């Protein structure tokens, strides 16, 4: 790790500065959505479909409306009168706001009660009578695409089957050629199950529309407040200058708080119609059954390999379960997100990726759950596939990777699917992790244990992510280019305020982004207030997800600080009566080259910016930057997991987890490591226990935290963290982003470890979550 260049009291890049946001959070003084209590607030509760597929023949809300305290029952018909029964999704589909014709999944929004009290609103739901005519549900994408399957999206013009999209990329001809050259073809078919981000705070809104002024102040659990403002303007037809989105403290997002949900639209419409604030906060069950699921990819990967273990090409067929509406939050031109990063960390010339998605009678979503648009699925597939190939070829899985890695001197490296990886040293990363875990010794111990009837497994994953979307030439969401912004104002006393287009949900932006400014200008990080989340008070941006805050918003912050440094140098030159080009800036001190005793501080310069300027210069020390990144950034890591599997029960326990991450320059190592530990836990969760599944009737299994298992401190393994630091060459401070790396990279490491324990029996796949009964069944089938 590079040593910090600023002293600790300035707290620039590389210092583990304590977090500024903690002070309010440890005293219970945070301001989360449900804490917002405006005068005369009404409360909304949503009636949801108990059935996965049914026609609605009628809704009788008269009894509910008659309840004391109920102001209105909103149905799809009422929304339809205002043109709001349907809304666009982030993938160009439409989604029902309140059902008018059919319900297409269990938990779908059917009606909403607006009442003076949340208990009354919930009570009233019981009094709404819906006449449903049951239709057969389709609960798998395979069923959905069968000839003659019932049409789920019968309302959609031109839709004659249940296909949601198709997408392919790569070079099919070159890939066929590579397969023709191969000594063998290694195949892995696996399912990355449906999961849910389940941040501890559910989603919610307080919509406050003033019917006189037309001002709509919308407090919302939003990872992307500016984009949401524009989408609200487009969908609801409200003038954008009258919409103010305020995203307050957010209790975790992980992708769940990127989409606009039907509840937001209904609450806003209700506030507009009634003229009072309307609050809606999801219950946990609503959160799990209706908002933003992730994954659900059925993947078949094939590797063309030589007998020496050299990879020649990759072929992937993927089928995604989209639920009832195609609503992936993803860049427009990529129908399966950035899944085509599936070539991973390896140097081979040919790949062909074929994707299709199917509608089913399940909740829509397809959010990027702590990942950059389907990269988690891609990383999982290639790392499982390479491990499988190692077994088939008969070489060690680590050796297989080292043999095929992109080499440090090959960067920038263009992959077979068109990504241009910026930088990396993969062999050093893997070897460092192997040394730390004692890889050779572990392989010996594994052999000895096996002789005693014990099952030890060693799983490796070496992932490469593509994050920080992204360059405007390629990346947009709903037509909005994926740039981001920072506005910096230095006040006369030398203190500053930084305003961001991105929005923290716990990542610590208020601390780390101040550190970037501290690094450039030498203003102590603690003297810099960071404002974000309020669209009236911050510059435009696409928000925080896909690990884009540091790569895009962080870059904007560095660039705007450098702009002010340039102006500051001119002011310093004026104060020091020196030439502009002779001024040097280090840790907040401007000095004259060759005469270090002649100096002024950034605080002196800040005052001068409002009091004593060179002739002709404009007053003030503030600026704004919109940053359009030239490329994505490509963080990577080498993870090694050691497990012991009980052959009699299939229960597995993690003995060790060594995680090496290279995210380029680390702004705040403490926060980086905190994010990695959190991400590893979510990766462990998906590999071991966390999934949303459905019975044949389309009932969601996993509708509360008793059925949807997220790990507690008791189950969570201990982690050993390592780091290397290869900077991104194109990012202004060399940072790559890290918030999602561990969730992307670690599931394959955990699963590979379990497979490795039983691979000698011939087991090649156990689908996630790797539940003990699945392990036991795999062993039982193999022996």
């Amino acid at each position, binding site marked *: 790790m590079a040593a910090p260049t600023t002293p600790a009291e300035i707290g620039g890049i590389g210092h583990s500065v*304590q*977090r500024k*946001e*903690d*002070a309010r*959070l*440890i*005293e*219970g*003084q*945070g301001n*989360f959505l*449900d*804490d917002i*209590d405006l005068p005369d607030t009404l409360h909304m509760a949503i009636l949801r479909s108990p059935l996965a597929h049914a026609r609605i023949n009628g809704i009788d809300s008269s009894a509910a409306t008659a309840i004391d305290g109920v102001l209105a029952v909103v149905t799809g018909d009422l929304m339809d009168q205002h043109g709001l029964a349907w809304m666009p999704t982030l993938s160009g589909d439409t989604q029902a706001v309140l059902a008018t014709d059919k319900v297409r999944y269990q938990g779908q929004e059917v009606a909403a009660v607006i009442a003076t009290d949340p*208990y009354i609103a919930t009570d009233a739901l019981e009094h709404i009578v819906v006449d449903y005519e049951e239709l057969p549900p389709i609960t798998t994408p395979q069923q959905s695409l069968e000839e003659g399957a019932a049409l789920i999206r019968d309302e959609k013009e031109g839709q004659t089957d249940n296909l949601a999209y198709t997408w392919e990329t790569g070079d099919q001809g070159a890939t066929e050629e590579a397969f023709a050259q191969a000594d063998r073809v290694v195949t892995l078919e696996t399912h990355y199950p449906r999961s849910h*981000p*389940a*941040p*501890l*705070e*559910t989603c919610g809104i307080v919509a406050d529309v003033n019917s006189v002024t037309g001002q709509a102040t919308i407090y919302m659990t939003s990872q992307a407040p500016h984009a949401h403002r524009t989408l609200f303007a487009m969908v609801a037809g409200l003038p954008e200058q009258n919409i103010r989105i305020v995203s307050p*403290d*957010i*209790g*975790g997002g*992980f992708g769940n708080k990127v989409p606009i949900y039907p509840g937001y639209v209904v609450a806003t419409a209700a506030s507009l119609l009634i003229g009072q604030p309307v609050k809606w906060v999801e*219950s*946990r069950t609503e959160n799990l059954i209706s908002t933003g699921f992730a994954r659900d990819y059925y993947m078949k990967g094939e590797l063309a390999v030589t007998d020496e273990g050299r990879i020649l090409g990759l072929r992937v067929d993927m089928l995604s379960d989209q639920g009832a509406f195609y609503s992936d939050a993803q860049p427009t031109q990529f129908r399966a997100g950035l899944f085509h990063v599936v070539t991973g960390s390896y140097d081979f010339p040919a790949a062909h990726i074929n994707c299709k998605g199917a509608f089913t009678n399940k909740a829509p979503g397809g959010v990027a759950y702590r990942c950059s648009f389907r990269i988690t699925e891609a990383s999982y597939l290639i790392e499982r596939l390479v491990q499988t190939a190692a077994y088939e070829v008969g070489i060690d899985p680590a050796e297989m990777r080292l043999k095929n890695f992109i080499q440090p001197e090959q960067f920038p490296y263009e992959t077979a699917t068109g990504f241009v990886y910026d930088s990396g040293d993969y062999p050093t990363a893997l070897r460092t992790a192997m040394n730390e875990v004692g890889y050779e010794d572990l392989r010996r111990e594994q052999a000895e244990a096996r002789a005693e009837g014990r099952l030890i497994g060693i799983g490796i994953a070496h992932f490469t992510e593509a994050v920080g979307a992204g360059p405007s030439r390629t990346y947009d969401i709903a037509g909005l280019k994926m740039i981001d912004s920072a506005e910096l104002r230095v006040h006369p006393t030398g203190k500053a305020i930084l305003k961001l287009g991105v929005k923290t*949900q*716990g*990542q*610590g932006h208020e601390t780390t982004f101040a550190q970037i400014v501290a690094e450039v200008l030498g203003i102590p990080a603690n003297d810099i207030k960071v404002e974000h989340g309020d669209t009236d008070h911050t510059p435009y941006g696409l928000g925080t997800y896909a690990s884009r805050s540091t790569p895009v918003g962080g870059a904007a912050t560095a660039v705007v600080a450098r702009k002010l440094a340039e102006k500051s140098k001119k002011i310093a030159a004026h104060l020091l009566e020196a030439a502009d080009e002779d001024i040097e800036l280090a840790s907040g001190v401007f000095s004259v080259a060759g005469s270090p005793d002649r100096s002024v501080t950034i605080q002196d310069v800040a005052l001068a910016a409002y009091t004593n300027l060179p002739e002709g210069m404009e007053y003030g020390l503030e600026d704004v930057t919109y940053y359009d990144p030239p490329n994505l950034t490509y963080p990577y890591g080498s993870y090694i997991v050691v497990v012991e599997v009980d052959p009699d029960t299939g229960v597995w326990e993690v003995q060790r987890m060594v995680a090496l991450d290279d995210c380029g320059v680390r702004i705040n190592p*403490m*926060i980086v490591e*905190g*994010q990695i*530990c*959190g*991400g*590893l*836990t*979510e990766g462990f969760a998906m590999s071991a226990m966390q999934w949303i599944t459905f019975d044949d009737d389309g009932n969601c299994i996993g509708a*509360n*935290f*008793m059925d949807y298992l*997220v790990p*507690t*401190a*008791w189950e*969570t393994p*201990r*982690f050993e963290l390592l780091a290397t630091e290869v900077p991104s060459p194109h990012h202004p401070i060399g940072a790559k982003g890290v918030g999602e790396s561990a969730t992307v990279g670690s599931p394959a490491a955990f699963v590979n470890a379990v497979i490795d324990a039983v691979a000698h029996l011939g087991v090649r796949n156990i689908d996630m979550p790797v539940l003990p009964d699945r392990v036991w069944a795999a062993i039982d089938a193999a022996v």
Partner: protein
Amino acid sequence: MEITITINGSDHASDVEPRTLLVDHIRRTVGLTGTHVGCDTTSCGACTVLMDGKPVKACTVLAAQADGTEVTTVEGLKTADGLHPIQSAFTDDHGLQCGFCTPGMMLVGASLIAENADPSDDEVRWAISGNLCRCTGYINIVKAIQTAAARVAESSNGS
């Protein structure tokens, strides 16, 4: 029905519906919003408060059941002497990220170290196993609780 609960040292008398949950009473009637709701099924622990010194999940306790008890919420951890050791330890050891689970985690931690001056890693993990965190992976929460325990032990040895 009429109830009186002593919350963070102050008596709060109110007329509540019998079905009112303690967490709703604390948040909406008393106006202390540091206690959070994460699941409403007793699973996540975000709503944890101390009732007569013991952690309870306030989403599955009726306000009526708390009548006559002393309740401590996150807002009651700080005293005239300053932050509770558990609060400063959570900051020092980076035991929080989004901060939503933090009030519950700190109250469970405070309760643990009041009974066990030197809890082991496993003892802390068991104590907080009714509280979910989606951000930290628990490692720094465990560390913070142990740091707080050590600081409390140190200051009581010194006094």
